[in-house]
Each structure stands twice: as structure tokens, then as C-alpha cells.
């Protein structure tokens, strides 16, 4: 099947730093996909490439049926929220609503007013005078009001308190469900011939695995500027197991399964493995892995062909999230 987002070999280099290398992913339509990875892993770069704010050094991205580009039909379908929540600090939320209304063909300014009224965020104060959390809410509401087919959200939860986070995730899930079922937005240029119509797809980056687990059904994991995992969360959970056993040789396991991570103490060994069939050796206790274990397992794994040294060096070299 063709995803809303398809990339192949997507690479972005900034002078000497490689922010994203050889990224090949597919995000199916109508999903909420979580993008995880440590700081500097390339999450922001990937989102900016997909939004058309940056151009790839190599490789290709296909978003909504074409490359990210400078045309109205494409831009109208993309909702992007940058990590630093950039808004015009001297303008009010109300003025930002007008901003959107004048620059977008579909615009649901009423939804922003309703959301902000519900959160008791004043519409008539310069957004620079709002708290960080309030500003994030304004920016999120504005991004949603554009009614895009694809939402690209870079750390939208970072500035929110736990309650606001839960509400936002609920609203997001609701928006995806609503768009999936129905009507409006069916007549999208890119989705016109796609039967079920233009369901909302979301790609959101976050550090908070619990939040990802709560709302996402698809996961992309970046580590050291490379894609380590990309797939349905259910599938990932089904594929991975935690094996615990006495301290012993793991080569037998490694022969059949892929060992993602190995922790050994003097007395026992814990393995995170990607299964390739059942584990037959009764010496190992087999338990289901939760998402956090899988994510952390892959994050701490040395990527193929790299010892711990160079990878650490590379991660620190990447520095910021660009």
C-alpha cells in the first residue's frame, strides 16, 4: 500500500553534520504516528523536510502523492507546528486567527476561538504575554484550524502540563477518527481517487513514550540520524520479547532471533530480541516487551557497523535538533 508519507534514502547534511541519513519510512493514512528518538536524532529535520521547509541533500520524500513543494494545493494540506512554537509575539491570538483566515483556503477560526475560550486563554492579548503553555495551545489550535490532511507536529506536548497534554491527545485522536469516518475533505486533490477519502494523518514527535503509547498506533524511531524502527505499534509489540535467563552464551538465540539489546549481570542476562519464530530454549523466561522497553532498547543499541564510541561522538556532534 502507499502511505501518506513515503521516503526513500532521505538524507540531510548541514555543512559537516549529518542530521538525517538514508531515512526510508512509510506512514499509512489515517494514523497517528509517533516519531521518537533522542535529542539530535533527526526528528525535527525529518519533519521540516516533510513540511517543505527544508530541502533534502539526497533521497526523496513523497507526501500526499508528490514531493513537498511550493504550491498552494500542497501547502493547504500540511499542518506544521515547529518545536519552538513560533508565533508573532506582538500580535494577539485573534490576529493570528485573521492571519490564518487570510492565508488559507479552508480555515476554521471558530474552532480556535472555541478551544481557547475553553482553556480560558485570552484572544486579545499579545501572544508574547501568554505563558509558554498557553502559547503552545494557541499554536496547536491554529495548526488544527488549517484543516490539513497531514499534521506534522514537532514536540507539541513539551510545553503542556499533564492535563493539557491529555486533553490535546484526546482531541487529536478525535480529529483523526472524525476525518476517517466522514466526508469533508474528501474532495482533496491528492485523495480524490482514494475511495475512503482524506482521513487525517498525524506525525508527531515526542520524548514521552507514555503519551505516544496512549495515542499513536504507528511508530518511527530515529537514533543517530538513522531510522531504527518504523511500523505499527501492535506489530512491534508482537515482534519483540524480553528474555531473561541465567548468565550464558547468547549465540544460540542470536542464530535465530535478532538481539536488540543485551544486559548482563553476574547472575543473569536480559535480552530484548526481535523474534523470528518461537523461543524454544526453556532456559529463557519469555515476557512481552512494552513500548518503552523496545524504544529504549533500540535507542541504546549501537547501530550496525558502529561501536559505541563513534556513535556517541556523532550524537553529540549533531547538537541541536536541526
Amino acid at each position, binding site marked *: 500500500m502507499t502511505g501518506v508519507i513515503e521516503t526513500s534514502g532521505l538524507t540531510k547534511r548541514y555543512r559537516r553534520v549529518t542530521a538525517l541519513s538514508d531515512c526510508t519510512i512509510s506512514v499509512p493514512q489515517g494514523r497517528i504516528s509517533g516519531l521518537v528518538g533522542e535529542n539530535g536524532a533527526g526528528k525535527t529535520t525529518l519533519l*521540516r523536510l516533510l513540511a517543505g521547509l527544508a530541502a533534502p541533500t539526497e533521497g526523496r520524500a513523497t507526501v500526499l502523492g508528490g514531493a513537498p513543494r511550493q504550491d*498552494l494545493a500542497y501547502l493547504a494540506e500540511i499542518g506544521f507546528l515547529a518545536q*519552538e512554537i513560533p508565533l*508573532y509575539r506582538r500580535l494577539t491570538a485573534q490576529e493570528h486567527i485573521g492571519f490564518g483566515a*487570510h*492565508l488559507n483556503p479552508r480555515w476554521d477560526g471558530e474552532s480556535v476561538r472555541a478551544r481557547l475560550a475553553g482553556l480560558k486563554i485570552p484572544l486579545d492579548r499579545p501572544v508574547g504575554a501568554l505563558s509558554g503553555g498557553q502559547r503552545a495551545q494557541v499554536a496547536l489550535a491554529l495548526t488544527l484550524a*488549517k484543516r490539513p490532511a497531514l499534521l506534522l507536529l514537532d514536540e507539541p506536548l513539551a510545553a503542556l502540563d499533564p492535563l493539557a497534554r491529555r486533553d490535546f491527545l484526546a482531541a487529536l485522536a478525535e480529529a483523526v477518527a472524525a476525518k476517517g469516518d466522514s466526508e469533508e475533505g474528501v474532495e482533496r486533490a491528492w485523495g480524490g481517487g482514494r475511495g475512503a477519502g482524506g482521513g487525517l494523518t498525524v506525525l508527531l514527535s515526542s520524548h514521552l513514550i507514555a503519551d505516544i503509547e496512549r495515542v499513536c498506533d504507528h511508530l518511527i524511531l530515529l537514533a543517530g540520524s538513522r531510522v531504527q524502527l518504523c511500523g505499527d505499534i501492535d506489530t512491534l509489540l508482537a515482534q519483540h520479547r524480553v528474555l531473561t535467563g541465567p548468565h550464558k552464551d547468547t549465540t544460540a538465540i542470536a542464530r535465530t532471533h535478532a538481539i536488540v539489546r543485551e544486559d548482563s549481570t553476574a547472575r543473569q542476562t536480559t535480552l530484548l530480541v526481535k523474534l523470528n519464530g518461537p523461543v524454544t530454549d526453556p532456559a529463557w523466561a519469555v515476557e512481552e516487551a512494552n513500548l518503552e522497553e523496545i524504544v529504549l532498547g533500540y535507542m541504546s543499541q549501537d547501530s550496525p557497523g558502529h561501536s559505541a564510541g563513534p556513535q556517541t561522538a556523532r550524537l553529540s556532534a549533531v547538537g541541536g535538533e536541526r
Partner: protein
Amino acid sequence: MTWVLWRQYRVTAAIAGAILAAFAVLLLVTGLQDAARWHAALVTCAKDGTCGNLSQTVSLGSGPLNTLAVLTLAVPLVFGMFWGGPAVARERETGTMQFAWTQSVTRRHWLSVKAAWLLLAAAVFGGAVAGIVTWWYAPVNALHHGQFAPGYFDIQGIVPIGYAVFAVALGIAAGTLIGRSLPALAVTAGVFLAVRLVITYVVRVHYLPAVTTIYSVTRNFTPKGAYWPLTQGVVLPGGQFSTSLIVAPGVIQGFGTVPASCPASSAVPIGSTLACMARLGYRSFATYQPGYRFWPFQFMETGIFVALAAALIGVTFLVVLRRDA
């Protein structure tokens, strides 16, 4: 997009409008007074038959307001630094570029509208200031014919419009290339001053070949109207031009270069020295840009600055369309 810009810039526009209004009122009041004095002086001198030395009997074009008018030289630079410089750079610094560029508006459209309005505002405000100053200077010009001189040429007529448009385009381009407002302001100021100085003092004089008039050393010569004097001196009997000796009735500058065969000392009347030089074949010359070229030069210089502005805007487009947000 225009609505969006208006929201972003209306405070700036209001401030600029208020300053312009205050400036206009100040110059209007004093300008009317100057005009009245000028007319009164004309009436008086016509009665007395003393209009020949009007510039000695009437004092116009001096004082603090004259300084203020001359200070309008800096107006285009202020536009360039504070309107042009941050136009793109500030959006990059604060990240709002990412907000603007992910609305349903292409970068090309975003920049076209933004640059067009800023350049238009610069032309309108710069033109208004220049218009007021030009009007204010009318009696002074009539009296002193000084409007072609560097410095005065630059604040009257239409060249200030060209400067303002250029300065804003320069600011936008510098901000786009550098990506940060403050360094962009500095670069804008530096480049603007350099270009202005080079054009004023090196290039301008060559727009049209200067006119040289050769005349008798025993006579005075003053070109008509607001001419721009360049050099003067004497033509030696051999035909060479020398600027180390300047003579006019009653005046000899450069006594040392007076030919030895003509007695020249404080004891000898200047008139006889000059008559002697005339007999030997010495003539005076003056090189200048005639006053009727004031407007052709205004148009040429404005054209140059508008062309430079267009090139800078072209560069800005290339960068904005290609570089990452």
C-alpha cells in the same frame, strides 16, 4: 497577505506617519516664513535696484532647520536598517518564517507582497520627505543656486526616492543572506554609505561629460543657474590646462605660478598683471556641470539606485526560494 502585513507593520507605519507629519508641519511653517521673507526682499530690491547682491542682503537656508533638512540625508538609511533589515531576518530569527511558510502561501508570493509593500512605503515616505525638503529649499535655491552641489542634490528632487528604495532592498537582501537582524542592520548601513559615497563623489560627475568654458583672464565667468562647479584654472599659452593658478578680475590665486614676464607683487595692480597675462595668451577656464542638467542627473541617479535595488531583490528571491527556512 496584504492584510497580514498591515497587521505586522501598522504600528511602524503609524510611527513613521507621525514623524513625517511633525516634520511636515515644522518645515511648512518655517518654509512659508522663508518664502515671505524672500518675496519681501525681492520687492525691496526691485525698488532699490539692489537685486544683484541679494544673497548678501537676505539670509536664508541657515540655522537649525537647515541642519534638519540636511539630516534628511539619513532618512533612506533609517528605512533600510529598520524596515528592510528585519523584514526577512527577524522572521528567521524568531522562527515565525516556519509559521508563515506553512500557511497556504508560497514563499514567492510571501516575499513578493512583503517586498513590494516595503519598497512602496519607502518610496512614498522617502518621496514625501524629499518633496517637503525640495519645497522648503525653493527660496534658498533661488537665492544661492546651490541645489546641484553634492549633499544638497541628494536631499531634493527624486533621488531620495531612489535612495530609499535601494536602502530597503539592501536591508531585505542583507537580512535574507545573513539571517540575523542586528548584523544585517550593520551591513546595510556600511554598504549603503559606501555605495552612496562612491556614487556621489566618483560616479555622478560622469553621467554626462562636463562642460569646459574658456574665457579671458580679465573677465569673470559664472555659468547660468544652479551649475555644479568642478574645476577652474588657466589655459597656458601652450594649450595645457593648469589648476594651480586661478585668476579673476581682482583675484590671483597661486602667485608663484604667474609667468615671470608679468610683474606680480602687492605693489603691482592685479589688473595690469592680468592684462599682461592675456597678452601672453593666458586664458581662464572653468569646468562644470551646467544647471540645466540638474533634472537629467536626478533621473539618471534615481535610475541607477532603482536598478541596484532590483538586482538586490532578485538575489533575495533566489535565496528565499532555495534556502531552508
